[in-house]
């Protein structure tokens, strides 16, 4: 298996306002994600509009950790990409990472991504 793709970014949030997370696996590949927030499991599998935090909770300096495993299924391309969409902060933002190319069907790569709320 390839080495994991390791990324971290800041996401500016508004005080006492929860955010949502959606994850899109691109280039026609298949993947699944496990999401933890502040050390607590939030969900796994396909992630769409997953609430992070609760109303009145201060998210600043807390982080959401995403482990996304992508398996090559597309016979036409080995390119992989994962787009993490955060909404509800200062502004909605897409974080797209596409650092790995898989040579054969069935090959896999783990995207190890954290977002720190600032």
């Amino acid at each position, binding site marked *: 298996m390839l080495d994991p793709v390791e990324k971290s970014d800041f996401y500016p949030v508004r005080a006492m306002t929860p955010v949502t997370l959606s994850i899109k696996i691109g280039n*026609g590949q298949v993947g*699944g994600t496990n999401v933890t927030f502040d050390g607590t499991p939030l969900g796994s599998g396909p992630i769409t509009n997953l609430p992070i935090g609760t109303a009145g909770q201060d998210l600043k300096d807390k982080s959401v950790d995403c482990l996304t495993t992508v398996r090559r299924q597309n016979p036409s391309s080995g390119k992989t990409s994962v787009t993490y969409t955060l909404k509800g902060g200062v502004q909605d933002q897409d974080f797209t990472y596409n650092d790995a190319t898989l*040579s054969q069907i069935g090959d896999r790569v783990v995207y190890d991504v954290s977002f720190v709320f600032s």
Partner: protein
Amino acid sequence: MRTSILMPLIGLSLAVVPLAAQSTAGPAFNGLRTPAAPAFVLLGIAPTEVERPNTPADLALSVLNRSAGLTSLPKDVALEISPYWLVKHPMLTWEADSVRGIDSSIARTMTISFATAELGTSTRPVTGLALGLRAAPFSGRIPARTTARLRELGDRLGIESRVLADLRAERLKVLERIRTQELEAAGTDSARRREALDRFTSARGELTRTVMQSPQYQVSVDSTEAMFRDLALNREGFVLELAAGAALQAPGGAADSASLARWGAWITAGYEGKTLSFVVVNRFLASSVDSIFDALSLGMRLIYTSGRYAISAEGSFRSFTERGAPSNESRFAALVDFELQKGLWVTGTFGRDYAAGAPGSLIAQIGLAINVAGQRIKIPGP
């Protein structure tokens, strides 16, 4: 065309992306093998007369060796590119690609091929150069049973990721505590905050790589692979492909002597099923050198796949369009493909070529098709 008895044929798939990247022969044969480039067809060196529409690779290099006894290096080379798949498509999910409209189907199946072949003899060498183009306005759809399996795979990969997260959870908490302290110490200094985050990313990456070597995680990965090893993303249903191209001939290999020799266009239509496929090709090939051999061909091929082998039968009928041309001809062939091991195929073609009465019209070829592509791009480190 191919008239030598027991002429070995090697199709080496030296692709930047593998041409035959699959685990099992049945579904893999059906869906994932890149067909002969149109440029090869125009040069008259394609392994089959009736080629199915198929899945393009983003970049593929095909090498054919038509020498008897494998005694010389391959001289017939085709490069085929799919412009769409050469670039990244981060917003294209497999679900969005499961059903295609006409425009998206054309974009995702269009390929451009270039080929060279040695068409002359040792005493009168002639280099052939060809350019081909193909695209499929209709390329089938991912069947419901495959869609269900892909969703199961996505869920399973989520579980795998959870196993990984659980295995590193305790040590990750320590790293996050350190990161929080460093971020607080950095205050509003964005450069120091970024540095603190980068240190955390590096340490977390090392932790993740270590945990990925653990037996517990490996068991989880192996379990997934056991469940989905045979999963191939085959498209089924109606397919329609258009192709065209032109070929130049350069006697003696001299560039100044190159001239248009052949051009052609063809339509391929068919139905792709789970184990049975049927395809019809209507092709017009013309020669600017000698128009007496301008011909309209109609070919049919029936393919059955099961397990590690595929059997097909093809027949084609050719009618010359010019006055004084030879009479109509027909060709029949049976093709067998057997996967010896992953990526290594034995292929055989047997039958009767067009000029049945002429010496060498018996088709009898056995060869190997090898996928030699391996892991080719290492992910850059953090």
